[in-house]
Each structure stands twice: as structure tokens, then as C-alpha cells.
């Protein structure tokens, strides 16, 4: 047997292609939320102990650990709590750069959702700015987050910081 060993120059990479399909259960709870989007309604869940409203709905409050069985509608408009201006492309997203990704606290909700702000210059977006959802037209809404195309300024006066400080 030789003791010289295999070639000195090693193979440098081993490729592996992964094929991992998934099919997520939405669950009865989330289905109600998603179905409501078809009717241009955003549902939140109300904590049975503190009364806080979570959007999208969750079955239990992480904070109080109490169930949030009650689903209630919140407004499709609210206030920009924080935001950032995106200048780098994201794979699989074709929005024209730069654009604004914002945290929006909907009226009636105690936590914010993430939202795309359009129909204004990025430089004009500010904390406290009032915005509203722009929905897909009737007949095109599928019961998914994509039923809201984006949010846009309402032109209302800005909300004072103190009014959304607890929802940052």
C-alpha cells in the first residue's frame, strides 16, 4: 500500500441543493384575521386581563400571559411611530429605491405593525405622521397581508409624541 496519500490539492467545495417544502397551517384564529382582510377589516385580539389590543392577533399576551380570545376590529389608519429609509435592494422585492419602511400603530391597537409608506417623498415621512391603508380593489383581495398594497399619508395633523410613546 502506498503511504503517499491522496492528491495534495484538495477539492475545495462540496455543493448541496436543499429541497425542503413546507405547508403551514394558518389555524382557526389566524384564518379569521386573514378572512377579515378581504372585507377591508383589520382584526386585533384583546387581552382578557389588561385590555391591550394586539395586531395581528395572538392567542395570549406575552406580557400578562392571559388569553386574548376576543377579536375586535381596529382602524385601517394610524400613526407612524418609527421608520427607516431603505436604500439597498432586497432580493425578491421590486419596490423602487429609496422607500420607507415604517412601524405604524393603528388606531385602537396597542402594538405597531410593519408597513410600506408610499405616495409621498421619503424625506417627508416623520414620526407622528398620520397614514392610512391603501387596499387592493374589491374582487382582488385574497385574505392575505398583500391585500394592503401600502400605507399613504392622510394629510391630518401629526400626532404628538406622547400619544404614541407607549406604542413605539
Amino acid at each position: 500500500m502506498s503511504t503517499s496519500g491522496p492528491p495534495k490539492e484538495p477539492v475545495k467545495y462540496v455543493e448541496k441543493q436543499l429541497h425542503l417544502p413546507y405547508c403551514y397551517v394558518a389555524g382557526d384564529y389566524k384564518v379569521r384575521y386573514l378572512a377579515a382582510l378581504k372585507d377591508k377589516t383589520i382584526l386585533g385580539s384583546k387581552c382578557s386581563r389588561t385590555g391591550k389590543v394586539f395586531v395581528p392577533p395572538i392567542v395570549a399576551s406575552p406580557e400578562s400571559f392571559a388569553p386574548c380570545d376576543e377579536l375586535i376590529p381596529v382602524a385601517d389608519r394610524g400613526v407612524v411611530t418609527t421608520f427607516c429609509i431603505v436604500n439597498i435592494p432586497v432580493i425578491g422585492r421590486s419596490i423602487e429605491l429609496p422607500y420607507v419602511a415604517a412601524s405604524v400603530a393603528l388606531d385602537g391597537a396597542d402594538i405597531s405593525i410593519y408597513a410600506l409608506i408610499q405616495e409621498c417623498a421619503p424625506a417627508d415621512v416623520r414620526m407622528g405622521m398620520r397614514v392610512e391603508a391603501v387596499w387592493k380593489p374589491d374582487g382582488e383581495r385574497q385574505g392575505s397581508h398583500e391585500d394592503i398594497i401600502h400605507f399613504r399619508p392622510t394629510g391630518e395633523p401629526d400626532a404628538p409624541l406622547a400619544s404614541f410613546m407607549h406604542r413605539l
Partner: protein
Amino acid sequence: MIGRFLAGLKEDKRIWGQRVAGQGVVVPPVGYSETDGSAGGDWVEVKPTGVVTAVARVHRPIPHLHPCAEPFAFVLVKLDGADTALAHVVRDHLEQLRIGSRVEAVWAPDAERHGSIRDIACFRVIS
């Protein structure tokens, strides 16, 4: 270590093991002892023939996971000169395959060896 072992398959159609503390001649080598963590020692060439120590017959291969669409068998093969067994597949003459069968490596054609354990296309039963 893994890269040089794979280069041996790809370029020379030769199978190399490594002498490792506590494990003897390990094929395929990882460059260290899995039992005590010490560095691997000398390279030792082993034969492309060996004996089957375990057999799992796959009657319904899983697409995009298993190496072929027709029924085949996963095997552990202790190659002649090695002290550990190599996991691989047998594709033909499955009716002759059993624990204790002698098998030999079937090499992928030159153009289809890319530096992978599958440069050994499969093993075939020789007795």
C-alpha cells in the same frame, strides 16, 4: 482532509483512509479521531472492495433526496483495509445483496466525478 480524500476519488479513483487513534483506519476520513479528538495520522490506501455490514432496502425512493428513482439499498461497507464502515448505496442485483456480501466500488465516469462521495456511483455485489 475531506477535500484531499475527495480529490483522490475524483482524480485517481483511489480510496484513502486515515489512521486515527482509537479507531484504526477510518474510511471516509474526517481528519481527526471521533473518539478522542486527536489529529488524524498517516494516509492509508484501502481497496475498492469490502464486506457489507448493514443493509436498508428502499422500495419507494423519495424524490430530490434519494440518489435514484428505482429501488435501491443503502449499505454500510467495511472496505478491505479499513476499520470503519462507509455508508453508500447498491443499485443492482439487490436479490443477491445481504449482510456479509462482498461488494466493489463502481466509479462514476471521468466527466461525472466532481469531488464528492458520489464519485463512487454505487457499489455492486461481487459475491
